[in-house]
């Protein structure tokens, strides 16, 4: 049963309170050269203000949180770079929304995870840890500006296992400058040897204004060509599925029942609340993103005000196109019936030209029940999404 891992087992309740909570920890010991997520150097004083503000934001927004939650996800930044007391305080904040089935994930950096931290996570109720391994090749880790070494990864995973954590996910990156298909294969093998419950493989992206992008523009590093990246992607699929992991999303693989519930809320277009600077939320049909500015964030919440944020509400075909952009990332695709229940129309009727064209050329597969991206088109799926979004923005042609 290849596509059965994330059958839409939850009722669709887009209008209800959020099923998932994200907490953004905007601190790192050191910034990686490729990363454009919001983070600042860790500082105890700053962390204090941040935690107070975080508690205030939770208080302001808790009425729109379902109790208990399906998922709590603490990411960053590097949550584990907080001092132990601060980390305890942070992990204790959502305690009232944790139920017996809540998935509680924390992102860890292998360099900052020891036995004590592992034990602390487990005792705080964390039941899933995602380890930012990225690569098992020392040279590649240096290229990325990661502060940990290849051996740190194994050590961190061992510490987690010793602490009783059985749900350990690994993140890997391909497309690193000077990475080769052979070195990528070694990384994949090393990762699978650890037997993770979940594996994410992301293509390195050169985000504007990052040191890595500047180095590429200055000719100091050479980006991996698209052809090789595609080979790496295909290799990841072959290796991971051969190891018994199910390829359930564009970049994600999981053991049975170990899909990432948190990310599924995004892909299934369900409501979530993000706390912290730069965190994104989607509640009551409104998408909002807090400003990436810790000082402004804490200042507003100290005054008891909502932190500065940008928001928008999409309706009609724009909302449908966005839902497809998310849902089609799942290998099983989008359930047509479920889509129609939510939006009142079949996707093919709403966006006939873009979908029709990609179905005709084989990039999309349409069955009576589902619409999904064909395996060969996964690595160019943004072309499909861009076409669908563009059609949604056009006026509907007159019949």
């Amino acid at each position, binding site marked *: 049963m290849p596509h059965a891992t994330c059958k839409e087992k939850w009722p669709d309740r887009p209008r209800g309170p959020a099923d998932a909570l*994200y907490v*953004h920890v905007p601190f790192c010991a050191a910034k990686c050269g490729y990363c454009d*997520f919001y983070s600042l150097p860790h500082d105890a004083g700053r962390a204090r203000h941040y935690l107070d503000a975080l508690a205030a934001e939770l208080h302001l927004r808790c009425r729109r949180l379902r109790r208990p939650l399906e998922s709590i996800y603490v*990411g960053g930044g590097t949550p584990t770079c907080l001092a132990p007391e601060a980390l305890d305080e942070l992990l204790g904040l959502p305690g009232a929304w944790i139920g017996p089935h809540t998935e509680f994930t924390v992102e860890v950096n292998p360099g900052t995870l020891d036995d004590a931290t592992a034990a602390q996570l487990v005792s705080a109720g964390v039941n899933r840890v995602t380890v930012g391994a990225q690569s098992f090749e020392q040279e590649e880790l240096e290229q990325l500006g990661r502060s940990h070494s290849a051996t740190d990864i194994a050590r961190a995973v061992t510490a987690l296992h010793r602490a009783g954590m059985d749900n350990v996910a690994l993140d890997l990156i391909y497309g690193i400058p000077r990475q080769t298909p052979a070195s990528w294969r070694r990384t994949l093998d090393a990762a699978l040897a650890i037997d993770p419950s979940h594996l994410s*493989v*992301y*293509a390195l*992206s050169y985000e504007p204004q990052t040191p890595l992008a500047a180095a590429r523009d200055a000719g100091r590093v050479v980006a991996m060509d*698209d*052809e090789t*990246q*595609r080979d790496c992607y295909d290799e990841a699929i072959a290796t991971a599925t051969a190891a018994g992991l199910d390829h359930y999303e*564009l*970049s994600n693989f999981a053991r049975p029942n170990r899909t990432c519930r948190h*990310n599924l809320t*995004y*892909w299934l277009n369900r409501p*979530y609340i*993000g706390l912290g600077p*730069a*965190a*994104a*939320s*989607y509640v009551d049909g409104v*998408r909002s*993103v807090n400003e990436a500015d810790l000082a402004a964030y804490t200042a507003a919440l100290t005054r008891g005000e909502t932190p500065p944020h*940008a928001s*928008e509400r999409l309706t009609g075909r724009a909302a449908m196109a*966005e839902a497809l*952009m*998310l849902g089609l*990332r799942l290998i099983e695709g989008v359930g047509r019936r479920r889509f129609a229940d939510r939006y009142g129309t079949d996707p093919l009727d709403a966006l006939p*030209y873009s979908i029709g*064209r*990609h179905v*005709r*050329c*084989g*990039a999309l597969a349409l069955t009576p029940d589902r619409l999904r991206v064909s395996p060969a*088109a*996964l*690595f*160019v*799926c*943004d*072309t*499909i*999404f*861009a*076409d669908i*979004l*563009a059609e949604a*923005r*056009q006026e509907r042609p007159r019949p």
Partner: protein
Amino acid sequence: MAHEHIRNFSIIAHIDHGKSTLADRMLLRSGAISEREFHEQMLDEMDLERERGITIKSSAVTIEYAAGQRNYMLNMIDTPGHVDFHYEVSRALTACEGALLVVDAAQGVEAQTVANAHLAQRNGLQLVPVVNKIDLPSARPEDTAMEIEHLLSTGPRPSRKRDGTPWAAEDCIFASAKTGEGIEEMMAAIVEQLPPPAGDADVETKALVFDSTYDDYRGVVVYIRMFEGRLRVGDKVRMIGTEEVYQVSELGKFAPRPTRVQAIAAGEVGYIVASIRSVSSVHVGDTLTLADRPAAAPLAGYRPPQQMVFSDFYAGTKTDFPALRDALEKLQLNDAALTFQPISAEALGFGFRCGFLGLLHMEIVQERLEREHGIEVVQTAPTVPYQVLTVDGTVHEVDSAGELPDPSRIDEIREPYVRADLIVPEAAVGPVMQLAEQRRASFQHQEYLSAQRVILTYEFPLAEIVYDFYDKLKSATRGYGTLDYEVVGFRADDLVKLDILVNNERVDALSVICHRTKSEPRGRAVIRRLRQEIDRHMFDIPLQAAIGSRIIARETLKALRKNVTAKCYGGDVTRKRKLLEKQKAGKKRMKVVGNVEIPQKAFMAVLEADEA
């Protein structure tokens, strides 16, 4: 006024040789206008022509001139100054008994000088040669006069003075419209050298329509030269060509401003107003007669305007289709030679296939749309009309490749040919001949105008010179070469329909008619441009050029290998969506053929593809 005191004449000259300033100078000299009214090129009514220094619409003016004891009425009929308006020039000349042949002393005789002089000679017009701009430091008046002598002694019907002796270089009038020098002699020569009109005021009325303009309040104003009979206000008149009948509500002459009169008689020039709604019902060259006492036959030489260049106009990004249509309709009120019909190429939206007399006419229309109506157009490269003889023996007019009948029904395809005079410096003859050979030209003859300047006469397929030939000629002659041409008919040749296939499907809007020998380089150029303009898709796209079922050129646009946002931006869906929307930004107009999106820009680029 008795006929002996009337002179009807034109001024013929190459562009920029000073025709309009000379006309103004005569008006000033005769007192027809005051110093205050004297401004440059007052005969030209449109900004556009003032800027381009050329005359687009002809007009007419009457100058009173006293010589000795006698008063003369000099009717000057202005002619459009460009090859595109060849027919209009010929009709204007038909309205005259003579012409001033004006040549720039610094430039010498040029292609249009020759073309217009020959045209006047063929029409039996008496000529008065004038060397203008003698005040210029670079003027070579004597050399120019020698070239004129040579020109007038050759041609279809060598010109002579009124006393029957040939024109010599020293007979030329040396003038400067700028300083006024020579104007007196020029006006005296008009009276002495040009014959008065013939024609009987008491027979059936025949008047030549030589121009028309549109007036918002009165409708069409028709410019006429009376050849026989007379016209009065209230008369019912009939256009012999169009068979339409109108009642004359106003008659006038030009003095130089339009001045109402009660009657016009044979030999005179004037205008009529008769509640005519559109200039398209008035054809230049048509004959006007009285409805209740009609002439038996029209004046010779009439033919309806013939569009020789076609281009598709689409509304640009800032303009919508109805605005473009309204603007074209308004322009057509004043420009009977402009035709347009709606077309819809899916790729480009709705537009119009417009027909023009020639390339300049096309440029003028485009500029007027922009200036007078604020309309921005996207236009395709110009093409020419073809005639197709089908196996059943009928001939079809075709102005785009899409209109061609099925190949099995085609007996032959004919294309318009022109006879072109190229006047070039002697040193540039080699490069110009090489250029002509590349354009399928057939050499007719070569003649030395002077030791340094040569007239090369060729016959060209119009399609070969319609696009960029003039630019190429200019660069081959360092800017000194000039060109004039006249359509001489349609000729069959080995013409084929070149199809372009994208992903194995024919794209109609990209098909062109071209000569078989040009089809391969052209096909290659087109698919090379397409490969640059079409984005990679999720599959390999074959791009092919074909004649019938035979592929003559092929390239493959390789499939896109990667276009994926692997990570998910921590739930910031808006950011991801906006990044994706950017991928399609600025690519709104796409035509989908064979599952391939072809941007509008690709169509334009392809139509402009240069096979060189």
